[in-house]
C-alpha cells in the first residue's frame, strides 16, 4: 500500500492526476476515524489529507470558519472556543473536518444543532479526475448554482477530496446539563415533546439521558419542565453522552429511520437511540444474524443501517435514482480512481 501525503491543494491535484495517469486507485483518509463506513474497496494507495490542516479564515462575528479539509477536530474546537463558538461535530479530537463530512457523520446533539451537512456553506473539492472545483459561498445564505458542496457530504470520498470548507458555526452554550432518568424509548419520546429546545434525548438500555444546553435561565426552566415529566435519578454537567454502551462493541451500526420507528432498530443490549431525530447506534458482537435482522427491519420502514465501525459495509437499502448516482460518479471520477465500489451507488451497478 502506497501512502501519498500531500502538503497543499496543488499537491492533492497532482496526486489525483497522477493516479489517473497510472491507473492507481486511491482511498482518501483523514483521521481514520470514519474510514470503516463504506463498502470494501480495493485500492493501491491511500491519500492522506492531514497535512492540509490550515485555518484559512475565521471571524466570530460572521459565525463562519474556513478551514482545510485535514484540520483535526480538536484543533478546530480550540480555535472556535477562543471565539466563544463551536462546530457541533462531537467527533473524536483526532478526526478531521473532511473525514467527518465525507462520512456523513451526525452529532448526538442533532435534535438542537441540526445536521452537520447543513453547516457546509462552501467547499473546494479535488474531483476524481483532478479538477479543483469550488461551489457555494462564504455567506450563511446562498442560492448560486448547484450545491456540489452538499453533494460531497456523505459521499465517502468517492467523488472527490474535500480540501477546504467554509462551515457555519454556532455560539457555545452558556450552560450545560444532563438529566438521567430510568426508562426507555416511550419516556424519551415524551421528553422530546415536553421540553422545548432540548439538545438531545438519548435512550439507552434502561436509561434516558436528557441533554440541555443554552442560557443558564433556559436550562433551569427546561430542568423544571423535565422534572414534571419524570423523576430524574441524576443531574450533572458531565460530557454528553455519558453512557455510550455501543462503543464497547467491535461492530457498530448507525441506523437512520423515521423518528417514531426507532424501536425497529434495536437489538441486543448495547444501543443508544436519539429520540426526535431517528438515529440509533447499535453495538454488535460481530456482523452476524443480528446485523441482518436490523437491516431487514430498517429497510422495511425506509431506513438505512450502515456500519460505522468494523466490517459489514453499508447494507442493502435501495439507493434513489441509481442511474443519476452512477452518472454523477462517472462525471467526477471517470476513471474510477476514488475507491471504486466503496459508495452506495456501486451497490446496484
Amino acid at each position, binding site marked *: 500500500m502506497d501512502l501519498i501525503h500531500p502538503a497543499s491543494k496543488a499537491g492533492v491535484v497532482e496526486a489525483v492526476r497522477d493516479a489517473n495517469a497510472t491507473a492507481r486507485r486511491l482511498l482518501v483518509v483523514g483521521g481514520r476515524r470514519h474510514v470503516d463506513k463504506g463498502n470494501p474497496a480495493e485500492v493501491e494507495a491511500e491519500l492522506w489529507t492531514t497535512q492540509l490542516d490550515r485555518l484559512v479564515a475565521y*471571524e*466570530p*462575528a*460572521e459565525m*463562519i470558519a474556513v478551514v482545510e479539509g485535514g484540520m483535526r477536530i480538536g484543533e478546530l474546537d480550540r480555535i472556535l472556543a477562543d471565539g466563544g463558538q463551536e462546530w457541533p461535530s462531537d467527533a473524536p479530537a483526532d478526526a478531521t473536518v473532511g473525514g467527518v463530512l465525507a462520512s456523513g457523520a451526525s452529532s448526538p446533539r442533532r435534535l438542537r444543532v441540526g445536521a452537520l*451537512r*447543513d453547516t457546509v456553506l462552501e467547499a473546494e473539492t479535488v*474531483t476524481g479526475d483532478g*479538477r479543483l*472545483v*469550488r*461551489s457555494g*459561498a*462564504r*455567506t450563511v*445564505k*446562498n*442560492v*448560486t*448554482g*448547484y*450545491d456540489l458542496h*452538499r*453533494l460531497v*457530504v*456523505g459521499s465517502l470520498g468517492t467523488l472527490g477530496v474535500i480540501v477546504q470548507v467554509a462551515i457555519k458555526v*454556532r*455560539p*457555545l452554550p452558556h450552560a450545560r446539563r444532563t438529566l438521567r432518568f430510568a426508562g426507555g424509548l416511550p419516556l424519551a*419520546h415524551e421528553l422530546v415533546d415536553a421540553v*422545548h*429546545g432540548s439538545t438531545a434525548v438519548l435512550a439507552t438500555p434502561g436509561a434516558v439521558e436528557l441533554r440541555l444546553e*443554552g*442560557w*443558564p*435561565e*433556559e436550562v433551569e*426552566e427546561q430542568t423544571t419542565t423535565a422534572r414534571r415529566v419524570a423523576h430524574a435519578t441524576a443531574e450533572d454537567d458531565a460530557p454528553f453522552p455519558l453512557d455510550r454502551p455501543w462503543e464497547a462493541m467491535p461492530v457498530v451500526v448507525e441506523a*437512520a429511520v*423515521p*423518528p*417514531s*420507528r426507532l424501536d425497529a432498530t434495536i437489538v441486543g443490549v448495547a444501543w443508544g437511540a436519539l429520540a*426526535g*431525530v431517528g*438515529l440509533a447506534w447499535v453495538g454488535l458482537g460481530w456482523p452476524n444474524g443480528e446485523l441482518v435482522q436490523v437491516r431487514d427491519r430498517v429497510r422495511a420502514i*425506509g*431506513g*438505512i443501517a450502515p456500519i460505522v465501525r468494523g466490517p459489514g459495509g453499508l447494507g442493502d437499502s435501495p*439507493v*434513489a*435514482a441509481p442511474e*443519476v*448516482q452512477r*452518472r*454523477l*460518479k462517472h*462525471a*467526477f471520477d471517470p476513471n474510477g480512481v476514488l475507491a471504486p465500489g466503496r459508495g*452506495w451507488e456501486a451497490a446496484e451497478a
Partner: protein
Amino acid sequence: MADVEGARRALEDALGAGEVLSDPLALRLYARDASMVEGGCALVAFPRSRDDIVACVRVAAEHRLPVVPRGSGTGLAGGSTPIGDALVVVTTKMTDILEIRPEDRLAWVEPGVPNLDLANALRPHGFTFAPDPSSQQTSSIGGNVSTNAGGPHCLAYGVTSNHVLALDVVLADGGVVRLGSEAPEAAGYDLRAVMVGSEGTLGVVAAVCVRLTPLAPVTHTMLFDFTSVADCAGAVTRIIADGVVPAALEMMDQGIVVAAERFAHAGYPTDAAAILIVEVDGTAAAVEAQTVVVEAAAEVHRARSVRVAADEVERALIWKGRKSAFGAVATIAPHYHLHDCVVPRTRLVEVLTGIYEIAGRHELVVTNVFHAGDGNLHPLLSFDRGVPGTLERVLRASEQIVRLCVDAGGALSGEHGIGLEKRDFMPLVFSAEDLSAQACVRSAFDAEGLMNPQKVLPDGARCGDFAMARGSDAGAVAEDLPEGAWI
C-alpha cells in the same frame, strides 16, 4: 423540431382539455414570473397529480418541448420565465396537504401548497414550517424548494434545504424518484440537497416531505430605531458577536420605512435613518436572556428607542410593514428592480454606503430592506421605465451593485436564485472549471437539457468543457440576453 400541436393533443388526452391552455392571452400571462424578464411559451398545463406531471414531462420529451416548472409565479430571478416553445407545468392545482405526522416531525405536501397555508395547517399540531419568505401568502412549497427560499426566520432556523427531508421528483425521462428519506439520513449521494435550489432544472417536484419545527412557546418582537445606518448595522454585528442568534434580524432604511409606513401604518418611526426588527423566541427564560443581550447591544450602538410588541396583533403589524415593503415601494415609482446579494455581515455598512453612492451616481432612488443577520441585502431601485434612458441607468447601476457585493466577498443570490437574470454573472464568482462541474450535475439528471433550459448556468458551461474564461465581462454578456431580460 418541437411539435406543439401534437403535444397539445397528447396533453389534452392525458390531463383533460380544461387543464391545457394555448390561447394567446394565457401564453402571454405565463410568459413571465414576478421578475421583469419576459419570455414566451407554447403551452401551459395544470397537472392535478403526480401522474399528470409524468404525462406532461413525457409528452414534452416526445414532442421536443422544453419543460418549465412553475409554482405560484412569485420568483424574482426569471427562473420560471419560459423561453421559446416551452411547456409551462403549473403546479397551482396540486394543493393537498397529504399527510401530517407529528410523531415523525414531518409532513407530505403537494408542490402547489402555499407556504403560509402549510404553516397554518401545522399550527394546531404545535409545529410550523420554518422558511417564511415575504411572498409566503402566495409562494408555493414547490417554488420554495426550487429557489431554496429563505425569509426573515432562516437566520436561526436555516433555509429551505434544512427543512426538506425528501422529494418525489419527476425526472426528465418521466421516471419518478424519491430523493432523501423520511429518515434523517438516506442511502447514496445526497441528491435531495442538490435538487433543492436547482430552480427547476433537474426535474419537476411532485411531492415534498417537509421537516416540522416545534412552535416556540414564547416569541418576543422588538423594533429599534437609529439615527444612522452605521449604528444600526453595528448593532446587528454586536448582537451576533455577543452570542445571540435571533429568530429574525431585519433592517430597513429610511426610504423603505417611509414607504412601508404609508402603506401598512405599522407605526414605524419615519424620521429614523434605519430601523431594526429583532425577534427572539424559545422558552420564556431563553427569550428573557436573549432580550437582555439584544437590548444592551442596541444601546451600545445608540438606539434611539425600542418598541416591544405587546401582543400578537402588534407583532403582526410590525411584520406587516416589513413583509409588504416590496409592494409599498409602488408609492415611490411604478417599477422597481430588486437585488438579492449576500455579503459578509461585518461589511454591511461599507456595502450599503457603496450602494447609496451607485444609486446617486445614476440618479436613481434606492431603498434597502434586508435580512441583516444573514448579510442578505435587498437593495431596491425604483423607477419609471416610461422615462427615456431610465432603464439603461437601472441596468448599469444594477451591474455595479452586483460587482460591489461580489468584491466584498459576497454571493450573487441569497434566496431568489440565479434564473435568467443573473446567469451571466456566474463567471464573476465561479471559474470555468467550477461551472463545468456544475454542468456535470445538471447533465447527470437531464442529459438532453429539456428541463428549464438556459437557466442558472451561462451559455457555454458544459460538463467537461473548460473553454470558458474566468472573469469574462459579465456586463457585456448581459447585454446579449433576450430583450426584456433583467428588467
